[in-house]
């Protein structure tokens, strides 16, 4: 196999912006002239922020690779290098074939022009030929769901429609390498689902995909391989499932990009009590989560949240003191928070418990979100007790929804 994209010891330094020991810089001729003057005789200090520090990796043709990592890891910078928008400071980036970015593109759409004109002109600017646009015009309109409004100026579109239009044009390019940066935040759930489908079909057609997302479930859904970045360096690479696991482990340990300052409010212990002490948890049974909290500060009028997530950091539910409507004061010293769930709605599997304290008015964190433990649901409803059901919990969704299901023949002749 040959590579589609290859990074060899790539460094990227952003020339402006914040750098250590210096004020944030704005571009001005006066500033640069003054600096030029002062530099006389002195040595030139490298300036700016380093986004990538010697990154090397290779993406094979037809592969689907995810770049994951915390904010500031250098994921978007790497994508910009692949799509030629930005240039490496040092090292070498090789790209074989045409690249198209499915970066959030809505802002490139011109508000004064109609949807039709935008597809035509913006499509050409993005790299479609005229005949390609003619061929795909109806698809683009249908994909964006804009049929009735296509001849109205885009400024009369809702912001969601504008974004959908931009994304739709970009997603009908057919490059060799496809680069996607958090584009899934665009539009409503139905449109997002269409985007994921579109990306999946591009991968199936043999296009190379490089995907950046904070949605780990989307990554798992679309990518077979992944690369974990932290502060511009490669931490782990390989099979997507394994890399995701490494990432969630690191998030739990707090070894990634967090400050090492101890939090003033900490959870010392998580106790999980089922219906019967010591017995394994089962779907539909009552559960009590007991959190022992140590606080170094008085935190009056706060909101304490206990979040439940699946193994991949996707939140499923948040249980909050806010729901009681009563004022919550967390005082210095030891407190214990009891959280009772009368009927656990999760199917068998592992679920993670997160804890955070927020100011309910400003949303500011009093205690940042932290992982406090895992609960294991090991017994499910009888109909899910087959091997098949256990083996594919993630594929069938984790929530136990009470339901009745019947099948009727259309002509009314039931069996």
């Amino acid at each position, binding site marked *: 196999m040959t590579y589609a994209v290859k990074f060899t010891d790539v460094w990227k330094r*952003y*020339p*402006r912006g914040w750098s250590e020991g210096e004020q944030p810089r704005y*571009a*001005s*001729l*006066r500033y*640069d002239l003054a600096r030029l003057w002062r530099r006389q005789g002195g040595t030139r200090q490298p300036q700016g922020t380093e986004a990538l520090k010697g990154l090397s990796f290779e993406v094979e043709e037809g592969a689907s690779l995810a770049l994951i990592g915390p904010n500031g890891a250098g994921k978007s910078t790497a994508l*910009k*290098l692949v*799509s*030629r*928008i*930005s*240039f*490496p400071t*040092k*090292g*070498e*980036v*090789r*790209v*074989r*074939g*045409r*690249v198209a*970015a499915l*970066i*959030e*593109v809505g*802002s*490139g759409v*011109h508000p*004064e*022009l109609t949807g039709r*004109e935008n597809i035509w*002109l913006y499509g*050409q*600017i*993005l*790299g479609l*030929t*005229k005949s*390609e646009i003619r061929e795909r015009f109806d698809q683009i309109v249908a994909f964006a769901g804009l049929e009735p409004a296509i001849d109205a*100026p885009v400024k009369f579109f809702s912001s969601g429609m504008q974004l959908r239009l931009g994304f739709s044009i970009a997603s009908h390019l*057919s490059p*060799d390498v496809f680069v996607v940066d958090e584009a899934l935040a665009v539009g409503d759930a139905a449109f997002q689902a269409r985007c994921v489908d579109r990306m999946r079909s591009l991968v199936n057609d043999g296009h190379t995909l490089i995907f950046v997302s904070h949605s780990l479930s989307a990554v798992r859904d679309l990518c077979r391989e992944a690369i974990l970045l932290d502060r511009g360096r490669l931490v782990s690479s390989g099979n997507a499932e394994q890399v995701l696991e490494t990432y969630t482990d690191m998030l739990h340990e707090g070894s990634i990009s967090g400050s090492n300052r101890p939090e003033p409010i900490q959870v010392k212990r998580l106790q999980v009590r089922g219906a019967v002490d010591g017995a394994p948890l089962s779907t539909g049974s009552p559960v009590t989560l007991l959190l022992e909290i140590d606080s170094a500060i008085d935190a009056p009028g706060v909101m304490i949240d206990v979040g439940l997530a699946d193994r991949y950091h996707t939140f499923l539910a948040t249980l909050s003191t806010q729901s009681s409507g009563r004022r919550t004061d967390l005082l210095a010293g030891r407190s214990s928070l009891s959280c009772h769930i009368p009927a656990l709605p999760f199917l068998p599997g592992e679920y993670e418990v997160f804890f955070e304290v927020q100011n309910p008015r400003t949303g500011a964190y009093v205690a940042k979100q932290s992982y406090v433990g895992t609960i294991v649901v090991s017994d499910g409803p009888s109909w899910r007790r087959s091997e098949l059901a256990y083996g594919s919990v993630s594929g069938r969704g984790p929530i136990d929804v009470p339901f009745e299901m019947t099948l009727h023949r259309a002509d009314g002749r039931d069996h």
Partner: protein
Amino acid sequence: MDSQRRKSELVLAGTPSRKLWRSLRELWDYRDTIAAFAERDIRVKYKQAVLGIAWAVIQPMAFMAIFTLTLGHLANVPTGEVPYAAFSLSALVVWTFVSNSVSFGANALLADAAMIRRVYFPREVPVLGSVGSALVDLAIGLTPFFLLAPFLGAHVTAWWLLAPFLIPFLVLVALSVAIPLAGLNVYYRDFRFALPFGVQLWLFASPVAYPLASVPEKWKTLYLVVNPAAGIIDSYTRVLAYGVAPNPAYLAFSLLGSLVIGALGYLLFKRLEPTFADVI
């Protein structure tokens, strides 16, 4: 699409290629994109204007009226055997193109900052698009000139047929100034403030309000060397107003001057280009 197409390999490393020839060849590959930018600019420009494309005509006409009144009648600027109005209109139609190209071209990258941050194309493409849209304005502005000029006293001769062939010279002058300014504008917004002011100074440093013949002989060479627009604007007034052949020497000054400035400016632009997306 053409999946059989041989995949070209792109290498980004060290310093980007600053070879003029390679940049120009890449630009040729992007000609459709340039046309798309130009088309968009034209559509946007006249979309909400009630008078629409009439603005392309109004601008030089209004200046002609003011210049004729002040410089032609009050200051009595000599324009030889054609009336001042005919002279200044022919110069202004051409000048409007230069001034529009430079004003819009120099701001083209900032206007499309959102796209620069997200999509790759050679960064001079939007600048060329702006010049392209100004070219359409020039074509629109020239039509009423041809209708009106005989009544203003311009000499209609076969030399009028030369007018379209001088356009490449004009485009070269506009590009040689617009491209480096567009690049510097990304780095230093100072240029944005200096630009309208600079364009106005340039107008008075060009033979638009007065004929080149009225520049003292001993300053003429310097005048032509410093301002590459001078030679081509003079050629246009000769052809369109006086109905005589352009002076090849002046035209050569213009061509050489804009080639030198253009080549240096383009190299500067290409040098700045790799970091545009990082700083814009």
